[in-house]
């Protein structure tokens, strides 16, 4: 059975027509299911756990954006159900990586049901699919208790599980099947030569399984686009733990 989790913003009037089209298409395809509408005080994980306990839900579909998916990942992994996405609105990077088009067209991808099993990253007991961004700060990375990596300056750190660089992004492609997270450190270093003030960007890449990042001052990190505060972030990877419905335009 399909369980559809509607994010609160999807219930806005501006999405009403598009949502109606989606619901009609799901009915035509024979994959309509139970709908849960999230609100300010309604958590997705409780509903999903209840439905799985009853033996009903085998596929959970996040109807919304990356933030909606973020609310569903943990319970989808724990309950071993398949995760689908019907993207609405802005901030839909995860859906784009999965090759799922926006709105009504996503229903056909869901119906075709190409399921892949990918790794998930974990930061402070919260799972993520694509990337955690840590803003420029004085930081150190302790790697598998064997060695310490220290950027000699304020560097941004990206921790990536599934990542293909976009137009204004750099770094390697991150493979969600390799059982590792790529840590990408970008810092500006002063170059020598004729222009003293010119700086160059040095990009370090470390494929790791478990490590922690500690910052000297509190920072706000983005976990698949969702903010979280702290000074210590413990990372690990859970290989092959998340089943996802993907489209033919997926990047992996």
């Amino acid at each position, binding site marked *: 059975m399909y369980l559809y989790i509607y994010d609160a913003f999807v219930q806005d009037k501006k999405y009403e027509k598009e949502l109606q089209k989606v619901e009609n298409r799901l009915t035509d395809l024979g994959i309509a299911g139970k709908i849960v509408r999230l609100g300010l005080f309604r958590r997705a994980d409780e509903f999903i756990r209840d439905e799985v306990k009853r033996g009903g839900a085998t596929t959970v579909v996040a109807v919304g954006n990356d933030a909606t998916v973020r609310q569903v990942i943990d319970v989808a992994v724990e309950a071993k159900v398949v995760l689908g996405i019907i993207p609405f609105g802005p901030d839909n990077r995860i859906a784009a990586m999965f090759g799922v088009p926006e709105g009504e067209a996503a229903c056909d991808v869901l119906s075709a049901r190409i399921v892949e099993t990918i790794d998930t990253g974990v930061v402070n007991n919260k799972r993520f699919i694509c990337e955690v961004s840590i803003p420029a700060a004085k930081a150190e990375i302790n790697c598998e208790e064997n060695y310490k990596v220290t950027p000699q300056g304020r560097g941004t750190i990206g921790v990536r599980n599934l990542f293909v660089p976009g137009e204004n992004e750099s770094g390697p*492609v991150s493979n969600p099947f390799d059982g590792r997270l790529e840590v990408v450190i970008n810092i500006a270093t002063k170059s020598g030569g004729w222009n003293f003030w010119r700086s160059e960007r040095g990009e370090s890449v470390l494929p790791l399984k478990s490590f922690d990042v500690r910052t000297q001052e509190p920072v706000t990190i983005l976990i698949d686009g969702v903010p979280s505060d702290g000074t210590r972030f413990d990372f690990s990877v859970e290989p092959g733990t998340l089943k996802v419905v993907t489209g033919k335009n997926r990047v992996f």
Partner: protein
Amino acid sequence: MFNRDEGGREGGVTIIARGVRVEGDFTSDGNVTIEGEVVGSIKAAGHLEVGSEAKIKADVSAGSAVVAGDISGNIVVTGKLDLLENSRLDGDVTVNVLSVAPGAKINGRVTMNGKIETEAVS
């Protein structure tokens, strides 16, 4: 896009760029490029590249290596070691195949095929 069969077995490429310092026992299952600073030890199962601005104070072991910067420590390479023209090695070298460019400096003993072949001082 991704190779699922080999994805889990490969260590991936590690790059330690300028402006990054590594302290401790660094290990990698794959290839490693170092342009920054390393203190401790380095074990790379694959190919190791040490850039011209790299500063390494560590014992190093690698499958093969190309060195353009400075290494202070003993180095063991199971395959070929290329020392480029401005490289400097302060430590003993154990290697199967060695290539030394003019201008490269070795301060230490060189052992090839398990036997000490020469003792070189720059």
